[in-house]
């Protein structure tokens, strides 16, 4: 069913995007997991995305003319970035910029640097790469990253890269054979919870020929999930339980150590 659905999306995007006149090429893709569970021992994870290039032009395939780029995106979020200034001798958050629809997680997996795959990568209907974030969001009135270039958007990119939430590392995708590829995505422990979209792009001579979409979920499970849901949905009850836990711990400590 899922495959059928993605096929449908694929064919719709082929019809409407009009990416390439000849549709002789396509991409197949699979992800090692649908869900990454976040439990008490969660300390990041690694997932594998694999797939194949399907083309009638076998000669071009064997010459290595095709490139695959995979984009992983977390849910968009609003971001505030603040800059400290020295005021009266101490450092205080002063100027601030806010941006809308910034992906909460963004990873580009590719074999080669993006600028070697296509030199017009930011000009096409899709923009790829950390430096082109926000270019393909046409929503009127939204303040996206690319619209306000400058030290704030630079700092946002830099900080997110330092937090391992944005990454663009050549070599994260490997061509196992002319048609088979395998990409490894490192998920940091601070990854945002929720659905992450995975889109694979097939390039030839710098042009996008085809795409394929899939997704996986990062979900809190078990005790962690229960605690998180309770805290956010039943804050009052959660608080009362936290207090009861504390009183019990205090009482237990007192009882145990008094006997000794």
């Amino acid at each position: 069913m899922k495959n059928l659905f993605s096929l449908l999306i694929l064919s719709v995007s082929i019809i409407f995007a009009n990416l390439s006149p000849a549709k002789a090429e396509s991409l197949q893709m699979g992800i090692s997991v649908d869900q990454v569970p976040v439990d008490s021992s969660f300390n990041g994870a690694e997932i594998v995305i694999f797939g194949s290039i399907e083309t009638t032009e076998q000669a071009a395939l064997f010459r290595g003319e095709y490139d695959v780029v995979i984009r992983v995106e977390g849910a968009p979020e609003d971001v505030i970035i603040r800059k400290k200034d020295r005021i009266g001798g101490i450092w205080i958050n002063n100027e601030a910029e806010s941006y809308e629809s910034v992906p909460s997680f963004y990873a580009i997996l590719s074999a080669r640097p993006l600028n070697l795959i296509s030199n017009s990568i930011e000009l096409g209907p899709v923009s790829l790469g950390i430096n082109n974030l926000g270019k393909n969001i046409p929503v009127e009135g939204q303040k996206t990253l690319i619209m306000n270039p400058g030290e704030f958007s630079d700092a946002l990119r830099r900080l997110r890269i330092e937090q391992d939430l944005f990454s663009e590392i050549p070599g994260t995708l490997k061509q196992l054979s002319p048609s088979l590829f395998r990409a490894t995505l490192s998920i940091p422990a601070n990854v945002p919870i929720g659905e992450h979209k995975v889109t694979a792009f097939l390039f030839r001579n710098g042009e996008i020929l085809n795409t394929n979409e899939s997704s996986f979920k990062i979900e809190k499970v078990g005790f962690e999930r229960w605690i998180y849901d309770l805290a956010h949905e039943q804050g009052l009850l959660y608080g009362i339980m936290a207090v009861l836990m504390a009183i019990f711990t205090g009482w237990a400590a007192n009882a145990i150590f008094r006997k000794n």
Partner: protein
Amino acid sequence: MSIYLPIAEMSVNIFVLFGMGAAVGFLSGMFGVGGGFLMTPLLIFYNIPPAVAVATEANQIVASSFSGALAHFRKGTVDVKLGVMLLIGGLIGSTLGVYIFSSLRSAGQLDLIISLLYVVFLGAIGTLMTIESLNAIRKSKNNDAPPKRKTGHDSWIHKLPFKVRFRKSKLYLSVIPILVLGMLVGILAAIMGVGGGFIMVPAMIYLLRVPTNVVIGTSLFQIIFVTSYTTIIQSATNQTVDVVLALILMVGGVIGAQFGAAAGHKLKGEQLRALLGLLVLGVCIRLGYDLVVTPTDLFNIIGSMDGGGH
């Protein structure tokens, strides 16, 4: 061994946190203080989001103050009536404090205000405590008689109206300074993530002239309720209490406190106060240094999906 904190949304080392809880517990057992003023900065140095550190610390203090207050109840060194009066002020203050906390957080100035409050209060109290205890040590060496406790009818505080009698404390005192003191400490407790004992105890001794033997028990008694209330209000409005973090700190804290209390019996009161004063000054200087020195990164970023209950 690392453990994932469900509210702070980060992976931390359980032994580091347990060790921090035990170390602060040891010091608080030794000096008879709650330890929130040490724990909250330590958590922030360990990269726990300040909003989570402050709210979770309130939860931990419930455990340590309850444990401590039980011992004082047994010895009969709690003035419940005075404690309830302080508590009424405290609950009002805590409500205000949580509200201030939320608005500072949305204005992006929470971290700064937390640091500034710490520097000011720790600096003032650390200095007073160190000077007072050094004087006491010098006097005890000269074998002077300790100064008599003032009778408690000479200051302006004792001339205020609405006087109430507190039998246990042997005081006849206006409720106004008690409510105001409770309220101020409540505000600070909510914003700074402390029980407020380090302000409450000196204020009760020097301003209200409460006899020293009931001060600690009464202060602990009201701290239980103020921090419980803060925990519940923070949970309901900011969702920043991390119970997993709190539990690790609590267990470390109550164990450390037992050993600290045993160590504390081996030192004289004024020596303890001098050490505590120096410790308080040390934390103050460390926090003050961070405010003044050029930060490694001038920018900081907050996304709507970042940890800490946004």
